[in-house]
């Protein structure tokens, strides 16, 4: 069985290599291995939506989950992965991160930056894609920053490491738009920028929606007139800034609103109600516990940082109990990373909702799988282990809510994009290559090896909070 696994790995490795080469030649990655049949055998399957199967198997066909259960027949020619003693859960969906955004997270020069889109600047070579994949994440909502009351358009990507930017995009995912409230928005800037208060922040957002409503009317009017055969109707100018806000008003784009303090979030919900739409998610939502009833009534999906607090004033009232509290008060809650490091152990961050507030295992796992999938309206594709869904799966060494759990194999669309043994093999190869290069250079130049070591990309001070959002 091990051999079979290795064969599969080699095949995938080849496919990836081909995809990357194709990418280099034509700028488009080739879909690979989509017709493969794989069975993950004898694992503890944590479906998230339908309980656990103590000794279950999963049949993967054409990138989808074909069958799940205690008795899955292995079709002839299928690749079998023996996962006895291991745990399988759905790939983690990180509803808030900034990876692969080419460093351009904030277009902070204007207060309303709804014309910019993360989707247009995806960097498929960001090494954090691979690192996060190795933490069991398969889908990421990679977002614009929180510098503006109305931020940019975000992107939902699948971590198909090796594919080009287009190849990463989650096909058919509902579009989203970032908004932001509070300190990050009102913070002093050079040059100065309106708004600099929470009042101004509400004013800018309200103004943007009024303008977008006017813009919609212009277009509706134009369409009505042309439909009636009026040849004198002039086509309104396309406005990139208002287009995405209008989509929010029409319910075609989801509003993800960065908010910390209860008062600002409450006011934002009222503003949305004033314009007839619903806020999809509050990002960070640290004081959400103070308005749990209102959040549940409005239908927000709170997106939590598990246990961060005190890194700024608006985070001083945060508690790690909020995730559980909001769940108990009826909200569908998710836990996000907001950074490449945190994203590598979202399973642990979910476990904190058991420690603080007593969620059960399934509720905890849903925080980082099914619930974010629901919030992003991609739960028909990902977020749980069910027949028909994408085969985005993680095989863990231990129960994923244990601190000792390490992802062994990660599937996206039924293909292996991370495997711990393969990773070790690649390390050995790289080490050999490094040694060979160093030996060759030593012969010619004789400089000490240390000098050729590239410097670290950034210092990481250890005595300051790791939180910066």
């Amino acid at each position, binding site marked *: 069985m091990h051999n079979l696994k290795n064969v599969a790995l080699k095949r995938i490795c080849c496919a990836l290599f081909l995809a990357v080469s194709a990418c280099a030649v034509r700028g488009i990655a080739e879909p690979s291995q989509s017709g493969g049949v794989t069975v993950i055998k004898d694992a503890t399957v944590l479906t998230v939506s339908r309980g656990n199967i103590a000794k279950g198997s999963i049949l993967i066909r054409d990138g989808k989950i074909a069958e799940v259960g205690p008795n899955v027949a292995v079709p002839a020619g299928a690749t079998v992965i023996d996962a006895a003693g291991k745990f399988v859960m759905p790939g983690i969906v990180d509803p808030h991160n900034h990876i692969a955004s080419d460093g351009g997270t904030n277009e902070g020069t204007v207060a309303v930056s709804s014309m910019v889109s993360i989707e247009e600047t995806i960097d498929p070579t960001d090494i954090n894609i691979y690192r996060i994949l190795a933490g069991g994440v398969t889908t990421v909502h990679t977002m614009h920053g929180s510098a503006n009351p109305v931020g940019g358009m975000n992107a939902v990507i699948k971590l198909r490491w090796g594919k080009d930017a287009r190849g990463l995009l989650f096909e058919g995912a509902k579009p989203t738009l970032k908004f932001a409230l509070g300190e990050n928005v009102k913070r002093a800037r050079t040059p100065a920028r309106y708004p600099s208060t929470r009042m101004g922040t509400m004013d800018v957002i309200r103004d943007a929606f009024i303008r977008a409503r006017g813009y919609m009317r212009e277009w509706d009017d134009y369409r009505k007139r042309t439909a009636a055969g009026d040849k004198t109707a002039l086509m309104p100018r396309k406005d990139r800034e208002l287009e995405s806000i209008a989509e929010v008003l029409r319910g075609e784009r989801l509003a993800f609103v960065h908010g910390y303090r209860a008062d600002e979030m409450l006011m934002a919900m009222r503003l949305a109600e004033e314009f007839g739409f619903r806020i999809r998610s509050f990002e960070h939502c640290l004081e959400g516990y103070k308005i749990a009833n209102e959040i549940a009534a409005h239908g927000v999906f709170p997106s939590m940082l598990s246990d961060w607090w005190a890194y700024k004033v608006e985070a001083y009232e945060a508690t790690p109990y909020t995730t559980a509290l909001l769940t108990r008060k009826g909200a569908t809650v998710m836990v996000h990373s907001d950074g490449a490091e945190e994203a590598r152990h979202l399973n642990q961050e979910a476990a904190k909702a058991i420690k603080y507030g007593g969620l059960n295992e399934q509720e905890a796992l849903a925080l980082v799988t099914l619930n974010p999938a629901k919030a992003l309206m991609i739960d028909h594709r990902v977020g749980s282990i069910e027949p028909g869904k994408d085969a985005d799966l993680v095989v863990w060494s231990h129960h994923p809510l244990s601190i*000792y759990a390490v992802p062994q194999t990660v599937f996206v669309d039924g293909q292996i994009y991370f495997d711990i043994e393969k990773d070790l093999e690649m390390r050995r190869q790289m080490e050999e290559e490094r040694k060979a290069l160093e030996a060759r250079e030593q012969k010619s130049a004789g400089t000490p090896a240390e000098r050729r070591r590239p410097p670290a990309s950034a210092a*990481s001070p250890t005595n300051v909070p790791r*939180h910066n959002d």
Partner: protein
Amino acid sequence: MQTRVRKITILLSGLLLLSAVVSLSGADSRAYVIRDAKVYTMGAAGVLERASVVIIDGKIAEVGVRVRTPSGARVIQGRGLEVYPGMINAMSSIGLTEVGSVDVTVDTTEMGDFKPQLRALEAVNWDSEHFPVARVNGVTASISAPSGGVIAGQAALLHLAGWTSEEMAVLKSAGMVINFPSLGGGGGRGGGGGAAPGGRGRPFAEIRREHDRRVKELAEWLEKARHYAKAVQANPSTPRDRELEALVPLVRGEMLGLMRADTARDIRNAVEFAKKENLKVAIVGGRDAVEAAGVLQKENVPVILGSVYSLPSRRDDAYDSRYAVPARLAEAGVRFALTSPSPSDTRNLPFEAGMSVAYGLSREAALKAITIRPAEILGVADRLGSIEQGKVADLVVTDGDLLEIRTQVKNVFIAGKNIPLESKHTRLYERYMSRP
């Protein structure tokens, strides 16, 4: 009527205050027995099944399968529970930092590059909300350290409970924080490279010159302190010099040098410097300590590691390179303590250890790295870090594996006091859970 209500209120608050005094006061002489628990002594006795721990007058009076219960002792039924030494966080600025982004609440970084006379203890806010939040998860002691310049000042080792910073101090001066001048690539400040503004893109020769100048300056300070010590010895009426006076215990090897260094080159330079200057040091941070493991092992210099929850510092490093640092150091025979350096994250110290186990460290070594190892490195292993007779009663009682996130803490003892498991977070949770 109103006065009566007021009187009752005063009486009630008086009673409340009294009970608080009883539960937290330094004069708590109550005896406790934790019975029939699994005791991880972290000492020579190893792990004891169905054992008991007796606490009298703030000390561990007895540990074992058969103990004598003092009369009047409060009994904690420990069946199914586990007892560990209170965890020790060997690097932090807890008590000096309240809200990270608000300067006026942060007292870590003074002006000037050489400030050995500064003492963290004199600026510790004992009412900081970070203390209860940290201790209710079983962290019972922590370093509180300044961080600016080359010589940042003196760190204190604090118990995470007490009425004043004096009561909390385990060591008023636990070590001299030195940001060893860096040659770049991250790490300590003061060398002109790495994190220093304008460090990137500068010619290496220039960085090297500045680095050498800083190291020379540092050596000169130490040299002056030695002369000063001699002068004072020869003539007690020598005019007092606060700065040199503060350095005397360091140059005598009586005070630990907490040398911050992160790159392999900086770590090697710091260790060589300490050897040449005859200082007793620990490397703090130690990001690339694995690459410098040889010299650390050979010179027996311990490492107080920064958080393992960190991204690899180079694109081509293994994805788990930081998680695996503790395992690699253990293999290389380097002594180390694990830390959760951000004050608000102090409670996550056990998870630093758990993550290290997931990536190759033995569970026993991981437990040591948050209990007895930091005690040894900080020179307090005679008092803290293990559950042994005569030691200070810093204990954490849990319903399971201390390193697992899901585990619940049942009791925390700090210097023999049974600490209420309350914090700002539990209070807010209870208050808003009860909102109709």
